[in-house]
């Protein structure tokens, strides 16, 4: 007879898929622009035990419709399940699990770096190389805006961190599929 009180080891949990380290997914979700819709979408992820990595929401060219771009880690099978469950939400119009190679994805980040006299120009040079924009300069700090792929933002972060990164803020990715087809 089975002992239901038996504790599972961490290895067993991982083998059972309860600890996930799958590939990254970018979901593009068109929803009706109505109150509470974002809660319904994000709540569904909570209920199914998924951790949303980034999430951004904004209007589309149709004022009745908003687009949610959502990135998360997960093994392929449970993502299918999440997409199917999302489809069941009455306010969800369309979902696409974007193929990374067929997708243009961008993120915006603001970096506040502490500077003194000589390092100020070094940061400005770095920003230029990254096609970033200096949006604020103070006596002891500088704010740089970087737009681009995740890897670029992360690279810039690595470079400026040693100077004294006061804070950083990222929007989360927005993504659109290549070619003529709608995302």
């Amino acid at each position: 007879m089975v002992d239901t009180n038996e504790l599972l080891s961490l290895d067993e949990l991982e083998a059972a898929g309860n600890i996930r380290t799958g590939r990254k997914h970018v979901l593009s979700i068109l929803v009706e622009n109505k109150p509470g819709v974002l809660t319904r979408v994000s709540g569904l992820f909570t209920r199914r035990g998924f951790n949303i990595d980034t999430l951004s929401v904004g209007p589309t060219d149709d004022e009745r419709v908003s687009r949610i771009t959502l990135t998360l880690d997960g093994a392929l099978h449970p993502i299918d399940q999440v997409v199917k469950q999302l489809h069941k939400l009455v306010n969800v119009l369309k979902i696409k699990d974007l193929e990374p190679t067929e997708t243009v994805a961008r993120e915006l980040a603001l970096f506040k770096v502490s500077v003194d006299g000589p390092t100020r120009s070094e940061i400005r040079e770095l920003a230029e190389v990254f096609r970033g924009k200096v949006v604020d300069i103070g006596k002891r700090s500088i704010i740089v805006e970087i737009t681009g792929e995740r890897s670029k933002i992360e690279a810039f972060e690595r470079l400026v961190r040693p100077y004294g990164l006061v804070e950083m803020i990222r929007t989360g990715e927005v993504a659109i599929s290549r070619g003529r087809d709608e995302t």
Partner: protein
Amino acid sequence: MRAVDAIMECLKAEGVDVVFGYPGGANLPTYDAFVDAGIHHVLVRHEAGAGHAAEGYAKATGKVGVAFGTSGPGATNLVTPIMDAMMDSVPVVFFTGQVRTELLGTDGFQEADTIGLTMPAVKHSFLITDPRELPRTIHEAFHIAGTGRPGPVVIDLPQDLSKVDIPYEPITDVHLPGYQPRTTGNQKQIRQAARALASARRPVIYAGGGVVLGNASEELRALVREGGFPITCTLMGLGAYPAPDPQWLGMLGMHGTRAANYAMDEADLICAIGARFDDRITGKLSEFAPRAKFIHIDVDPAEISKNIPAHIPIVGDAKQILPRLTDEYRALEADRPRLDAWWQRIRTWQERHPLAYEPAQDGGIKPQSVIEAIYTVTGGEAIICSDVGQHQMWSAQYYHYPEPRRWINSGGLGTMGFGLPAAIGAQMGDPERTTVVVTGDGSIQMNIQELATIRQENLPVKVVVLNNGYLGMVRQWQELFWQERYSHVEMNTYGGEDAFPDFVKLADAYGIRGLRLTNAETLEDDLRAAFAAEGPAFIDVRVTRNEKVYPMIAPGEAARDMVG
């Protein structure tokens, strides 16, 4: 007209003739409208009773049930039936009152974020912000609740908005771009499924609650008879196929028959129809039906390949798909292998392991025998509303349901306190039929106040309590899996064997005829007399205390390791 009067007009337009509810401050305007509406409103004694009654009504009739509650505590009391309706795909529209819009978000008196509280438990919900939207919202709520995979829909209405004047016009169209249930099924996949069925040597049809919900029982019978297939049903699917039939293997799953579970275990093809491979069915997932390929027919695409990967998925309505599947199958007649060897093997299991129990040695009443007696006395014609526990499983095993919608229980959520209020709804939905509540001494005390509703509505509901003084199912698990460390399962420790409360006196207090049965020899006659008498009855049957539900697949075990 006042928005609340428009609600009444909308309900009548949807064909609603009975609703269940409880008034309070925030829905007072709505209750004012009930005075002149000409809709039968049933006053329950707890909002959970309203919700479960609406579920019982929906399950018995196939129509959309309706429940009303006020804001705050009224709404939170509805959360359990809302979740229950979600788990069992029951079409119910819940109307909750909400505080005045100026109080929203201020922690006002009896304020609760009903939309937030119920969001993970609904098929959809609406917070009314513009009262002119009410007629459209109500029509869409009924549409969403009753179509596709049915489910609960909540409409939350702030008190002040419910009183304003709005123009009323009946709404008949629906604008829901994000809600387009697929119903027809793909013809290519249906043909593929027919071929698979025709070439299988050990096929099993596995039908679930979706067949009942989709009114596809006749269509299921046609397919099963055409192919001579063995068929088993889930707890929710009982009655989808007539139990007194030679092709019927009995229920499957945790407390299913050995024949049904062994057949699934050895099957080379399983055709699942409106069933969702719940853990109570599959046991240990990795060892479930290891030799089988799966056809999965379901109106909800999210159910397909959720737990078990489907080799042939068919998304759509069973009522539409099954006749086409049967036609395609019939056309393949020449190529079918004979199933004689398979049936022979199944018959051996059935003969060796019939559903049975030991008679009591000391003249006591065995709980299983009570269900058998109810079956005999009602001729299988009653609606059985069960609560949750051992009595539920015995009602599934020992009452043989000949038709769908005669078996009403809380399958997915397993809500104790479901049976009595559900019977109120079922009896009102199908007044000519005998409605029996089978419950336990634990379950009945979760919503026993609804006896007052039964009295007030003068409903001839027969309540049968299988009283063993225990939370029997929990006791069974503690006995089998927790080394007999009995923790808080004895319901009547005060006074020892004298089970309390005294249900006969309690029934009497509610103005309902109560009686106690203790004699196994006269059990059937006593029940017959109690059922034959007019009006409601509350029958406290003292059963042997330590009986267990067998057979059983222990949690996490495989079907072939059934015990008992």
